[in-house]
């Protein structure tokens, strides 16, 4: 990143805290133009959010369940996205599926970042034996392929799992990367002058964490959250595609699962194939772009050196 952009981002974060609303919006817009990854990613995600929220208002989402429409019809008036072999209206499925899939990702990602933040501060701020234990445990669990452990968890719960309980299952492993990433930030920040200052002026540990460190970490926590949500969505869609998801709920991954199980390829049901793929691609690319865009915002120094 150039010097210029770095001062800009410092100026921006100051103005965002102090400026009037109109000025804040204008500065935010300038920043977005300078950070196209963030802009394009946000646009993609907003399109999906608008689609799923607008769809819930203007379309009957009860049609997303079996036997509510004629079977395996291509797009036609009344069912603009076509229907699947169980008689689900695919427009309703896409609307509800986007909501449910995002919900799973948000719950699991938020829990993961919350646990990760707690562990990271316990380890990075206080240090000592807590740090040694947390670091060793994180190093070990990070080597285990997460999806496979989740397969064991989810297959034990097979049949009784809902989208919410699946989010909890995924959260069981979603704290690993956030803990490691936030801990390394805490280690750096612990040595910052203002933290030393607060310590010298007699603030307690929790006061420093809450009032001095967390506010300064917020952009970084945001970037970590987006990455964690993306990871959780990845895991949930993967589990669902293997048939370990909530069978009663029309999530995007379950749609991929039903599409493959009912051999949509052999039967030539092209609309059933491309619709979940397009929604998932927009979702994954959007989350990816937002997460690298936020990374640039949170840590300008890490930006591309070429």
């Amino acid at each position, binding site marked *: 990143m150039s010097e210029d952009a770095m001062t800009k981002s410092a100026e921006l974060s100051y103005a965002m805290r102090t400026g009037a609303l109109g000025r804040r919006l204008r500065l935010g817009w300038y920043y977005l133009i300078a950070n196209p990854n963030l802009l394009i990613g946000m646009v993609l995600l907003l399109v999906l959010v608008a689609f799923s929220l607008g769809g819930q208002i203007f379309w009957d989402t009860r049609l997303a369940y079996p036997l509510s429409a004629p079977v395996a019809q291509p797009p036609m008036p009344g069912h603009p996205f076509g229907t699947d072999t169980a008689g689900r209206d695919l427009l309703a499925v896409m609307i509800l599926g986007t909501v449910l899939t995002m919900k799973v990702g948000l719950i699991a990602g938020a829990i993961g970042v919350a646990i990760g933040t707690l562990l990271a501060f316990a380890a990075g701020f206080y240090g000592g034996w807590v740090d040694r234990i947390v670091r060793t445990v994180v190093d070990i669990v990070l080597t*285990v*392929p997460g*999806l*496979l*452990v989740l397969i064991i968890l989810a*297959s034990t719960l097979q049949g009784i799992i809902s989208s919410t309980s699946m989010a909890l299952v995924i959260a069981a492993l979603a704290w690993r990367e956030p803990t490691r990433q936030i801990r390394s930030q805490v280690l750096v920040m612990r040595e910052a002058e203002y933290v030393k200052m607060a310590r010298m002026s007699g603030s307690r540990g929790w006061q420093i964490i809450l009032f001095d460190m967390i506010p300064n970490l917020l952009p970084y926590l945001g970037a970590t959250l987006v990455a964690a949500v993306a990871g959780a969505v990845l895991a949930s869609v993967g589990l669902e*595609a293997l048939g370990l998801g909530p069978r009663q709920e029309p999530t995007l991954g379950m749609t991929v699962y039903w599409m493959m199980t009912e051999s949509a390829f052999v039967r*030539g049901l*092209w609309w059933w194939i491309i619709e979940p793929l397009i929604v998932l691609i927009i979702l994954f*690319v959007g989350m990816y772009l937002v997460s690298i865009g936020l990374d640039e915002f949170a840590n300008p120094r890490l930006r591309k050196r070429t």
Partner: protein
Amino acid sequence: MPWVPIVKRVIMLFVVIIAAASINFVLPKLAPKNPVEDKIMEHAENGAQMNDISGLVAAYNEKFGLDKPIMVQYFNYLEGLATFDLGYSITFYPTKVSDMILNALPWTIGLVFTSTIIAFLLGSVLGALVAWRNSARIIKYLVPGFMVLAALPYYLLGLVMIYLFAFIWRIFPLSGGYSMFAIPSMDWSYIADVLHHSLLPALSIVLTSVGTWALAMRGMMVTVQGEDYMVYAEANGIGPVRRFLGYGVRNAMLPQITTLALHIGHIAGGAVLVERVFGYPGLGMVLFQAIEGADYFVIYGVVLMIIVMVALAMFLMDLLGPVIDPRVKL
């Protein structure tokens, strides 16, 4: 040889393997109802004509001895694992889980190994070219494209490729590891058939992981270009190709091996789904069929097997690192 770090890594390897095995042992016992017993009871109630289920029940009782104290059960279980005894498939009794795994293993290793190596080499060269000062402009546009592809899970790109190349244009088969009527043998037509079937799955892994390697390599290459030996090589009149490959890539590539070790778990998990999408007859397909049939011994066996293999691969790469690159410390 630095023995202390090696011993540490060996201990960590065993901790991972025993922890994974313990999760496999404990989880079914914590669940509201024991799925394994339920499944066996269900088979028993449906009548024993179904492939001698009473034999399975007897084997299950003997092996897990549910009347014995839990610690005894646990040690019996670990003892079984140490001898690669993973029990029997419930659906295909009396087929052993270990045999099912051994049959599928070559397919998975072939697919994952070749596609990972190709992606690794291709990504490293592309990443190095992006950082290299006077490389073609097209590469500077190619790499960001691969980066966006890297946001997608392997199997999702796999589905897109099936849709395009097998469904619309019909150049490649829809699924499977070889044609339905092919006779497995070592002649050319069979090998060509297998390659034809494995191209799309391999390509979906390669295309979605090239970006990750390219990004890491770009960073390394930028650092390497600033080193004194690069200036020295140029001053000595060494040509650009040799400077790029022998001085730049060679030095920047070695740390990538550490990154590769970190990614193996991710690749293994992704490959399981790729196999399911392509109906490829490896461990992922065995796992998927076991999930469909609630065949718990097979699920647990396959998952445990992959976790152990990943742990072993990472262990080996950690040991190899300092051998290949003297700058790396264990």
